[in-house]
């Protein structure tokens, strides 16, 4: 897994992600204006003082985009990572333990999944204090039910293979079976799922922001910016399209990198570099 063996598509994806990261980290230096300062008229066109125009309150869109990378990246990425950690660990434990443990975990998972995700999030977030960490954890837990489903399905396929049986017969513990025998052989489909789930959590975050339970104004996030400016489309203002394009850009970049990871982890000979 070296930079030299990376195909051009993965390099583009990685460059894009690094670019967004750079924007997030150096936002105060790069951004021409403050993210919450009202600096011009409502929905000013592109060009002039404001490279991308202004939003529905007259704030500079470019500056908000740059600052918005912070919240979007941080919340969506950590929620996805946490949801995968929870979902994969629990699903693998269920598969490896079987019996009652599997039943209890799977039925609890069904229970959580049977409540629509948005309603569940609304109820929980309305009760708990408004805090970015709580937001992340709630998003992660809700999302982890989907990861659990997939994780259990792929792990079941692997767990009946002879080499897993051989490991049991050798007297290995559950943790070895989970992390050394099953996990490496399920990475490809799970990474693919990661690329998809990451996109979904950006959208889910924007939905929550729109309902007032996500990221709180005046802090910018891309999804929220789409919602703020959506009425502008009627008047031919492109202000809601630019943050939308930014979301698309980030998701495409993440998926380009994920595609490459899937290739290297599913090709058994290519696996020699990262095993």
């Amino acid at each position, binding site marked *: 897994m070296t930079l030299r063996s990376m195909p051009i598509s993965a390099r583009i994806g990685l460059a894009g992600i690094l670019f967004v990261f750079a924007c997030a980290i150096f936002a105060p230096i790069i951004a021409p204006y403050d993210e919450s300062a009202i600096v011009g008229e409502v929905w000013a066109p592109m060009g002039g003082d404001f490279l991308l125009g202004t939003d529905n309150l007259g704030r500079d869109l470019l500056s908000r985009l740059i600052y918005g990378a912070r919240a979007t990246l941080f919340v969506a990425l950590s929620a996805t990572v946490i949801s995968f950690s929870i979902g994969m660990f629990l699903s693998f434990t269920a598969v490896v333990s079987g019996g009652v443990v599997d039943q209890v975990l799977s039925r609890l998972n069904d229970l959580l999944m049977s409540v629509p995700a948005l309603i569940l999030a609304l109820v929980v977030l309305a009760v708990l204090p408004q805090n970015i960490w709580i937001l992340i954890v709630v998003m992660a837990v809700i999302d982890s039910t989907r990861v659990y489903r997939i994780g259990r399905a792929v792990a079941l396929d692997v767990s009946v*293979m*002879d*080499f897993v*049986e*051989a*490991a*049991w*017969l*050798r*007297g*290995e513990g559950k943790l070895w079976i989970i992390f*050394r*025998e099953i996990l*490496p*052989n399920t990475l490809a489909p799970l990474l693919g799922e990661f690329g998809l789930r990451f996109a979904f959590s950006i959208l889910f975050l924007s939905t929550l922001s729109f309902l007032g339970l996500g990221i709180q104004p005046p802090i910018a996030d891309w999804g929220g910016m789409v919602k703020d400016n959506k009425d502008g489309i009627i008047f031919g203002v492109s202000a809601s399209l630019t943050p939308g394009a930014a979301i698309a850009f980030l998701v495409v970049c993440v998926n380009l990198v994920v595609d490459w990871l899937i290739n290297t982890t599913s*090709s*058994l*000979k*290519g*696996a*020699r570099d990262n*095993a």
Partner: protein
Amino acid sequence: MPEMLSVKNLRIEVTARQTDGSATNLVLVDDVSFDVGKGRVLGLIGESGAGKSTIGLSALAYGRGGVRIESGQILLDGQDIARLGLRGIRAVRGARVAYVAQSAAAAFNPAHKLGRQVIEASIRHGIMTRAEATKRAAYLFGILGLPDPDTFGERFPHQVSGGQLQRAMTAMALCANPELIVFDEPTTALDVTTQIEVLAAIKHAIVETQTAALYITHDLAVVAQISDDIMVLRHGKTVEYGSTRQIIEAPRADYTRALVSIRQTTRQEARPSDDAQLRVDGMTAGYSAMDVLHDVSLVLPRGQTLAVVGESGSGKSTLARVITGLLPPKAGTVSFSGAALPPARKDRSREQLRRIQMIYQMADTAMNPRQKIRDIVGRPLTLYFGMRGTAKTERVKELLDQIEMGPQFLDRFPAELSGGQKQRVAIARALAAKPELILCDEPTSALDPLVAEGILKLLLRLQAETAVSYLFITHDIAIVRAIADRVAVMHRGKVVREGVKSAVLSPPFDDYTDLLLRSVPEMEIGWLERVLDGRRAVPQVPGAAIELERS
């Protein structure tokens, strides 16, 4: 006499694309020529990768996965089918050339009745009307010896046995009255007692319909029964081509001689001993309500080999699962070195687990594809003996040496090894635990004959060196002769015969052992007819031959 199929200087290549974008040409078949006349059978024989199937499919002008016919001619009744356009080839396939695949179970669509699938090609090509085709199918079911030929087509694929399914597929190929049929290992997936029925049926049908046939197999003994000529292939090249009699009785090439003389090794059995390594008493086991094993009792003396023989579904593998503790028995005990073993794996100590190791049939799935050979072989060393670092690496090298593989394999992944090498690594992993008993579950049945023989020799040498005991599960009598001290014959979950090898394999036989022994193909022309004549003379063993479990 005009040849039905005439292949001249056939060369088939495939372009392999590397990850870095470069392309290399691999030659799969190189300069192969042969002729098959009407009503005659040509056997194509060779190990995997020899190009047999590629040649067979080329007779349908078909190549799997980007394979292309580079040069040469494939003349079907004087017409070069490799030069035909798509439309022309479509008219040939299924109508003039038909194909019988290895796994009939996978080749039939489980959602449709057999009859409909058998007559499909004839109707599609407009050769017959539905009524005519149905009539012909019934006729073919009859000559192939299928039960109730008139209504057999009404059944679904899952309602008939594996051997019957394979014969139904032969009927499907014959239905359109093709000029040529390609049989691609039609009996390899079947049990010996079923194989003999299918072979006889195919042979009879070819004689009746006067079709030309290509018969692809890796088993020389099988092809000797059915074909008029034999072509031996290796690495895509012709090794030897001649009449069946010449190949079997006077092979010229070294490779052919090796193939003919294989399976003739025998070993002197060890003296009976009272020092039992493994003893199974009154074992009954199964899944939920169904019992797979009924009251099984076995003894394996220390340092010896017990071969468990039987066909698929006889419960051999279940026996191994019970001994390892994966499937706790419903009744009976397993004792090891005189002490009773806890029935379930979870209750056994690591030391108890260490002393029994297992070698699987499919080495591909028995090793984690994401671990290097170093880790696969080294893990038992760390787990059981706490070895780490250089000591561990040295010991892994020693073990690789024992299985006749060098240290250059240390950092390879299983996917980078050949089938025989993988099975050797699996043996090294078992050896690493310093076991007293190794359960071998058909370790050679997925391998080519010469490779399998190498594995058997290795196992025998290791037994001589380490005094390990083997419980060897197999369906192949030749292997039993080669390695066993004691033999247990299993049939439908019961041990029908058990004892030292010489006693079990010599008369008087019980009915089932007799059938099993006589069904093993021998490297002898006319064997099939002799056995079938013998069978007709003796009344059939009830329920043994045809009506077997589905594969």
